């Protein structure tokens, strides 16, 4: 067989269309071109976006410090800071003219709003409005694009612009969902009553998410008092009803029970469920009938909700209804819920029935039964000691098998024995009863005492606080068993392992006694109300139980200490009595060393008011001693008590000598250096001062003013006066002393002395008030002397004054006149006064006084700012002038009232009024003001036609900027016209000459 050569013949059924290669090239180029264009476009836009964002970022960096300045300007800022603040405001005002800057500023503030809180955040909100950025947000509200409107609402909400409330509420029923939702949140956020308005007016669905957001808003509102939401349960908008129900539940407003019951009948299942949830929450039991009524026509979810509510608020009377549901209801979930509800109302009334197997199906394997029986038998044998383990095991095995339960039983005899034992032991209280509960006492081959001790040894003590309200039960010695009831106060004991007790053989009493002390006892303090510790011990001693004979009562030391409240007091008294016998000297005393301080009156500092570390006590010593005695006494005492080292090291605290503003206070005498009482030398000085003038014991002296020596003596007297006791001082009579008047007036010319005169006294008399005595015996006091303050001439001061006047005369000009006048007022020397007057006269000759006064007016910081400002900024500055300005600004404002711009004139006038009022200068310059008012009234009237009321003068940003721009335009036009007029005017030669002086003045004024 030959295999034919298979060849494939390509019959091209589909052939590529013949396309012109040029076309292909063209298409390729076209697509490549499009791709390039696309990438260029992407690149371009990307770059544009990134450059824009970079620009924004850079601008943010520039503006954020300014914002910080605004946010943290403190009220107590210095004037420089305020001035800087004003400049910053002007700067930012200029920046705000640019939309881009406004946008950036808005972004900055919105960003910061998220990051900062507290006072800074409130300032931020205020700043947002001050800068007028909220106007941009308002403008967005009128946009046709939903996203712009939404953004505007968001901005206004975030920056808490309360004024926007009215505008935003219009959007509550907007057909565009995003705007509507934003408006809803804004309405609720901006005002407390916003939630009311929203619930009243909304017509649209409130989504679950929106409800959550709204709830979050009102939940976080400060001082929000929720309205009674039951008012909206009657709303036609079912979502409002639903939301109201949820709010009622959230705010626990349980005053709408009737409405809730009615709403159970609502056709809307969601409302039904919410109403039922409220009913369950508020336990509205009167709704049970309604719940039962509507149950059969509800959906499964509502049925379950109803059953859940019935379970919580229902009673056993409702079980019948629930059983009915169990029988009639087809839905498994509802049936289960009904049964569950029954069990909630009446627990365990419905037991599980399905899938429960018969008990016969459960058998215990034989080997396990036998093992258990054997174990029980052994245990029983240990108890009885005679039992046949095998027999017992067999019996028990049979019984186990018959009962199918692994329960140990005893033989009949044993059972009877145990039954009897139990009967007997039941009669015994507490420990005895506890012991006999399982084990017959007669079978136990140990004595009762030993058993008790053994038990005590084996037991674990659980302590409790036991309060004995009654006396312990008396021990009845006649009874066979010992009575332990009187140990009621003992902690309750629990047996740990009973079997071990039997494993141990008889214990000798000695070892038992020892072991008693090893028992770990956790005890608490036990208080008795009637019986003291001692009395209980007495009772125990008198009524010892048999087993207690073998050990001393003190061996019960492990027992908790019983403290009696009454006896405690008695004990304390007895202890105090016992302490009386102790040697007082043996009492340990903790003490602090107290340094004696020189008595002083802290309010009146004198040269003696130094805080010394040693006791000088001058007041006591000087009262009754003569000066030498004082000296001697003081010295002796001083050196007796302190050695030289002590004195050298004496620590002196200097205090500034201050006095009350009593013109006549003695303390006005300046003590240049503190009186350092640090050694003998100072002591002697002090005593010298003391003895310097013994005649000056009078309280009032009559002095001629110009006597130098006498003045010096007064000063000495006053210094010495401090150290004198009051006894001597009180002897001073009230008369005035007129001492000799020896010195010539010329001799006193260069002794400048100034006095504070008492108006009640003659000119040449200086009153020293009578000493009011000491405040107490331990204090030195300053006598209430009314001595005028004497200011002695300072040679250096004179020299400097002379030099100053020389300099002024040589180099000064008319500008120094105010200073010279000031000097003249304060100058005391006639010589200098004459000189100053001469200099003033000299300067007056050179210049016109009025002109000089004008030029020498205090410089206002606002003048500089005004030179570089436009009209708008000037208006802003004028507000600021009122806020921070003072007298210096008055003249500046007066000048401004003559300004070319009518609005500046008007504003300046207003500012001037306000500043004058502020400075209390309303009454001043009334004529000037009237003239100024007349001057500008015409311009003001013209201005008022287009003017809007200005806001708070302190708030420079309350201006209407749009209006300002118009004004600017007007002003610019006016300026242009003025300039044209000027140019025409200046064009003539005569005009130029006329304006030449003005030009010079302008140059001088900068």
């Amino acid at each position: 067989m030959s295999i034919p050569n298979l060849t494939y013949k390509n019959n091209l059924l589909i052939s590529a269309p013949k396309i012109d290669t040029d076309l292909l090239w063209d298409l390729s180029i076209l697509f490549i071109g499009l791709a390039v264009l696309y990438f260029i476009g992407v690149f371009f836009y990307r770059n544009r976006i990134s450059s824009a964002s970079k620009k924004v970022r850079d601008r943010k960096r520039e503006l954020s410090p300014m914002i910080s300045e605004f946010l943290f300007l403190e009220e107590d800022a210095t004037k420089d800071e305020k001035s800087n603040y004003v400049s910053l405001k002007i700067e930012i005002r200029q920046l705000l003219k640019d939309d881009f800057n406004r946008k950036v500023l808005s972004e900055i503030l919105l960003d910061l709003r998220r990051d900062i809180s507290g006072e800074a955040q409130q300032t931020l909100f205020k700043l947002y409005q001050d800068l007028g950025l909220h106007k941009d947000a308002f403008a967005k509200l009128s946009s046709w694009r939903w996203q712009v409107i939404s953004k505007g609402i968001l901005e206004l909400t975030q920056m808490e612009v309360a004024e926007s409330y009215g505008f935003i509420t219009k959007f509550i029923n907007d057909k565009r969902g995003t705007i509507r939702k934003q408006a809803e949140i804004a309405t609720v956020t901006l005002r407390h009553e916003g939630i009311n308005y929203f619930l009243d007016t909304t017509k649209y669905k409130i989504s679950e998410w929106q409800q959550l957001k709204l709830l979050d808003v009102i939940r976080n509102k400060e001082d929000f008092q929720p309205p009674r939401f039951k008012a909206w349960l009657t709303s036609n908008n079912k979502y409002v009803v639903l939301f109201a129900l949820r709010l009622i539940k959230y705010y626990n407003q349980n005053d709408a029970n009737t409405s809730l019951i009615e709403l159970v009948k609502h056709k809307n299942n969601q409302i039904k469920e919410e109403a039922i949830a409220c009913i369950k929450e508020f336990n509205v039991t009167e709704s049970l009938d309604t719940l039962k009524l509507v149950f059969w026509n509800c959906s499964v979810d509502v049925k379950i909700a109803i059953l859940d509510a019935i379970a919580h608020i229902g009673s056993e009377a409702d079980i019948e209804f629930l059983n009915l549901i169990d029988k009639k209801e087809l839905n498994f979930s509802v049936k289960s819920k009904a049964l569950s509800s029954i069990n909630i109302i009446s627990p365990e009334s419905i037991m599980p029935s399905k899938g429960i197997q018969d008990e016969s199906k459960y058998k215990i394997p034989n080997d396990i039964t036998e093992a258990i029986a054997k174990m029980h038998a052994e245990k029983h044998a240990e108890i009885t000691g005679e039992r046949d383990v095998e027999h017992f095991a067999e019996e028990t095995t049979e019984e186990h098998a018959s009962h199918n339960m692994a329960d140990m039983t005893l033989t009949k005899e044993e059972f009877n024995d145990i039954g009897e034992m139990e009967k007997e032991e039941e009669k015994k209280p507490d420990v005895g009863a506890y012991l006999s509960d399982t084990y017959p006492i007669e079978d136990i081959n140990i004595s009762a005492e030993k058993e008790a001790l053994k038990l005590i040894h084996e037991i674990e003590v659980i302590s409790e606080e036991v309060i004995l309200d009654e006396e312990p039960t008396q021990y009845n010695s006649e009874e066979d068993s010992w009575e332990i009831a009187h140990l009621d106060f003992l902690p309750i004991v629990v047996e740990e392992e009973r079997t071990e007790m039997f494993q141990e053989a008889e214990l000798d009493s000695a070892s038992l006694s020892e072991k008693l002390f090893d028992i770990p006892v956790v005890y608490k303090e036990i208080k008795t109300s009637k019986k003291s510790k001692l009395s209980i011990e007495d009772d125990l001693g008198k009524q010892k139980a048999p087993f207690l004979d073998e050990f001393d009562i003190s061996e019960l030391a492990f027992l908790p200490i019983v403290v009696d409240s009454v006896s405690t007091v008695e004990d304390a008294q007895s202890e105090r009595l016992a302490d009386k016998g102790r040697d007082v000297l043996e009492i340990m005393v903790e003490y602090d060393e107290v340094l004696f301080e020189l008595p002083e009156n802290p309010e009146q500092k004198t040269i003696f008011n130094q805080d010394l570390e040693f006791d000088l006590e001058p007041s006591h010593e000087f009262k009754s001693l003569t000066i030498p005695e004082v000296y001697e006494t003081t010295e002796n005492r001083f050196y007796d008590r302190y050695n030289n080292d002590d004195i050298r090291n004496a620590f002196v605290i200097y205090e500034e000598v201050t006095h009350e503003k009593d013109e006549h206070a003695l303390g006005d005498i300046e003590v240049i250096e503190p009186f350092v009482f640090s050694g003998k030398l100072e002591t002697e000085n002090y005593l010298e001062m003391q003895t310097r003038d013994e005649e000056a014991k009078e309280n009032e002296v009559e002095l001629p003013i110009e006597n130098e020596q006498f003045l010096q003596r007064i000063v000495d007297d006053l210094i010495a006066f401090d150290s004198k006791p009051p006894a001597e001082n009180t002897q001073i009579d009230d008369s005035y002393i007129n001492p000799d008047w020896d010195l010539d007036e010329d001799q006193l010319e260069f002794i400048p002395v100034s006095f504070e005169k008492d108006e009640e006294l003659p000119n040449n008399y200086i009153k020293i008030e009578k000493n009011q005595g000491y405040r107490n015996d331990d204090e030195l006091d300053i006598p209430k002397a009314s001595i005028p303050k004497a200011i002695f001439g300072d040679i250096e001061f004179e020299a400097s004054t002379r030099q100053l006047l020389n300099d002024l005369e040589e180099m000064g000009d008319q500008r120094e006149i105010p200073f010279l006048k000031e000097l003249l007022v304060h100058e005391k020397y006639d010589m200098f006064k004459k000189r100053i007057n001469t200099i003033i006269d000299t300067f007056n000759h050179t210049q016109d006084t009025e002109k000089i006064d004008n030029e020498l007016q205090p410089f206002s910081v606002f003048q500089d700012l005004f030179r570089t400002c436009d009209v708008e900024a000037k208006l802003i500055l004028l507000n600021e002038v009122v806020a921070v300005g003072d007298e210096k600004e008055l003249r500046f404002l007066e000048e401004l009232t003559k300004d070319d711009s009518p609005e500046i004139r008007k504003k300046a006038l207003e500012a001037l009024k306000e500043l004058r009022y502020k400075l209390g200068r309303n009454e001043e310059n009334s004529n000037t003001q009237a003239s100024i008012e007349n001057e500008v009234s015409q311009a003001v009237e013209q201005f008022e036609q287009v003017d809007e009321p200005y806001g708070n003068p302190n708030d420079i940003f309350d201006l209407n900027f749009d209006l300002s721009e118009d004004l600017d335009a007007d002003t610019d036009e006016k300026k242009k016209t003025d300039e044209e007029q000027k140019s025409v005017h200046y064009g003539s030669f005569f005009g130029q000459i006329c304006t030449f002086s003005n030009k010079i003045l302008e140059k001088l004024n900068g």
Partner: protein
Amino acid sequence: MQKKKLLLAEDDELLASLLNFRLQKGGYDVSLSINGRDVKEYLTQTIPDIIISDIMMPYFSGMELIDYVRNELKSNVPIIIISSAGNEENVLNAFDLGVNDFLSKPVSPSELLVRVERQLRKT
């Protein structure tokens, strides 16, 4: 009196600028870093008297910063962290690492100042 040195590490430039201004006004010598790398570099050169750091920072988070200061530099300089609300887990971890105090955003600048003063008083 010499101003206390304070390192402020906050990646949000606006907030950083604001806090920087407030702290400077409060009398501190503030060094500002807007990323973790700068912070680390700064700390290798000098240890400030107190550090305020945001937890979420680029390159070197606040947690890493705390770990670095406490375990590598072995410094007990007080650290206050600033965290966003709902970031409690991070805050707890930060306390484990040895941070001294924390503030949650939004931050009250005045409160921050008080906390800084308190921490410095403790030291």
